[in-house]
C-alpha cells in the first residue's frame, strides 16, 4: 500500500471540543478543571429513531451517531465495509453487568448490558442502520485499535474490491475506570485541567474520550477532506528502532523532512513518555511547526483517530484552528502535508501521513 492514495470522503468527531456541530476552527478551548475531559454529546434524537435509542448506552449512541454523521458529511452512499477500533468498548455496560451479577446474585439478569459490552456491538448497530452487509470487523488493541482498523481499510481499498469503507474509533471514560487507572498512575496526581496540560513536569496525563469516524474511498469525491497516504505502526520500539523508522517511513513515501508543513504529536504532558516526541523531531525535523492535540481530547486508547481527524480538517481548511496557534512560533507557509506521530503509554507508536486533496 506504499503508493495507495485513500481519500477521506467525509468524517465526524465527537470530542470534548465543539467538533461535532460547532465552529471548531474559531472556538476557544473548552476546558475542564478536573483531569478528565468529557465528550460534548450531541442530541442523538436527530440521528437515531427513539425505538432504537431507548436501550442504547452512552458509548453505543456516541459511536453510532458519529458513524452516521460521517457518512452524511461525505454525501456518499452507505459503506461496503465497516471497521472500527476501541480499546475498552462500552465500559459502562461492562461495569453494569459485573455489578448486576453481584447485586442480583447471578439470577434474573438483564441481557442488555452484556450484549452492549461486546466490543463489536457498535459495529453491528452501524451495519444494521446502514444496511451494510459487507465485511465488518472490530480491533481492540489499546493504541493500535484504530490504527489496525485503518490499515485493514487501506488494504481493502487497495485491493479494489470495495468502494467505500467506514472506519472509526470510539472510547468512553467512566468514573469507575478513571479511578482504576489512577491506581496505576495513568493520571496526574495534582488536578491540573487540560489548559495547563503541558505546564507541569510530572508523570501521568489527563483522561479523555470520544468518537471519530471516516468514510474512506479510492475516489476524490466533492466533499473529500484529505488524503491518507501512509501509516506505520511500531510495537514497543527501542530508541534506536524508532530513530531509524521515521526516516525510513518518509523515504518510503518519497518525501523529505522539509516537505512536511506541520507535525501533530500525541504529547500528553507525561514526563515519562513525552521524550519520544522531543527526541524524534529534534533529530529529524527540528524546524517544522509542531502542535500537540491531547489537550483537546484527553489521553485515551483511540486518541490517534482524533489526530487524523484534526489533520484532515487542517488540510481541508488550509488553516490552523485558533486554539492551536499559540503552540507554534510561526504558522506553516502552506498546508500540503501533515505528519502525525502518536504513541499510547510508550507502547504502541504510530506515524500517519496525510496530504491535502
Amino acid at each position, binding site marked *: 500500500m506504499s503508493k495507495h492514495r485513500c481519500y477521506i470522503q467525509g468524517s465526524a468527531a465527537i470530542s470534548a471540543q465543539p467538533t461535532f456541530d460547532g465552529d471548531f476552527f474559531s472556538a476557544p478551548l473548552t476546558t475542564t478543571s478536573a483531569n478528565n475531559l468529557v465528550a460534548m454529546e450531541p442530541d442523538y434524537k436527530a440521528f437515531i429513531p*427513539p*425505538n432504537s435509542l*431507548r*436501550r442504547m448506552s452512552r458509548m453505543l449512541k456516541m459511536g453510532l451517531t458519529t458513524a452516521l454523521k460521517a457518512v452524511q458529511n461525505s454525501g456518499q452512499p452507505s459503506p461496503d465495509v465497516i471497521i472500527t477500533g476501541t480499546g475498552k468498548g462500552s465500559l459502562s455496560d461492562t461495569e453494569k453487568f459485573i455489578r448486576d451479577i453481584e447485586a*442480583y446474585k447471578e*439470577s*434474573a*439478569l*438483564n*441481557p*442488555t448490558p452484556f*450484549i452492549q459490552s461486546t466490543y463489536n456491538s457498535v459495529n453491528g448497530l452501524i451495519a444494521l442502520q446502514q444496511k451494510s452487509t459487507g465485511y465488518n470487523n472490530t480491533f481492540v488493541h489499546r493504541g493500535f485499535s484504530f490504527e489496525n482498523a485503518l490499515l485493514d481499510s487501506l488494504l481493502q481499498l487497495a485491493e479494489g474490491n470495495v468502494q467505500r469503507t467506514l472506519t472509526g474509533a470510539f472510547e468512553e471514560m467512566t468514573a469507575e475506570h478513571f479511578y482504576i487507572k489512577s491506581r496505576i498512575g495513568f493520571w496526574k496526581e495534582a488536578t491540573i485541567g487540560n489548559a495547563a496540560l503541558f505546564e507541569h513536569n510530572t508523570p501521568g496525563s489527563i483522561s479523555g474520550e470520544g468518537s471519530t469516524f471516516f468514510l474512506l474511498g479510492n475516489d476524490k469525491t466533492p466533499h473529500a477532506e484529505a488524503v491518507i497516504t501512509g501509516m506505520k505502526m511500531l510495537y514497543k520500539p527501542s530508541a534506536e528502532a524508532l530513530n531509524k523508522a521515521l526516516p525510513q517511513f518518509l523515504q518510503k513515501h518519497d518525501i523529505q523532512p522539509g516537505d512536511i508543513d506541520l507535525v501533530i504529536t500525541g504529547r500528553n504532558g507525561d514526563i515519562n513518555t513525552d521524550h519520544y516526541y522531543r527526541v524524534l523531531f529534534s533529530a529529524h525535523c527540528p524546524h517544522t511547526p509542531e502542535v500537540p492535540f491531547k489537550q483537546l481530547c484527553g489521553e485515551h486508547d483511540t486518541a490517534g483517530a482524533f489526530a487524523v481527524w484534526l489533520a484532515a480538517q487542517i488540510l481541508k481548511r488550509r488553516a490552523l484552528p485558533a486554539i492551536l496557534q499559540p503552540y507554534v512560533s510561526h504558522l506553516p507557509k502552506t498546508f500540503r502535508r501533515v505528519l502525525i506521530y502518536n504513541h499510547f503509554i510508550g507502547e504502541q507508536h504510530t506515524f500517519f501521513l496525510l496530504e491535502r486533496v
Partner: protein
Amino acid sequence: MEALKLKLKEQIIEALNLQDTKPEDIDDNAPLFGEGLGLDSIDSLELMVLLERQYGIKVEDPREGRKILASVQSMAEFIQSKQPA
C-alpha cells in the same frame, strides 16, 4: 386484575425505557411484539427478567415465554395464575 395490568404497564415502560409511552397508550390486548409496541427478542428477555424480579416467576423456556409475553393481558393472566389466591 385491572390494578395489576396498570402496574404491569408502568413496569414495562420503566424496564424497557419506553420514554414517550404512557400506560394508557398500551392496549391490554395489543401485541407487545412486532406490530404493536415494536418490541423485539431482547425486550422479551428483559420482560422475563421483570417477571422474575417483580413477581418471582421464572420462565425457563423461551418458546413458552413468547406466549406469556404476547400482550399485557396474557402477562397479567399468567401472573395471576401463578399467585396464590
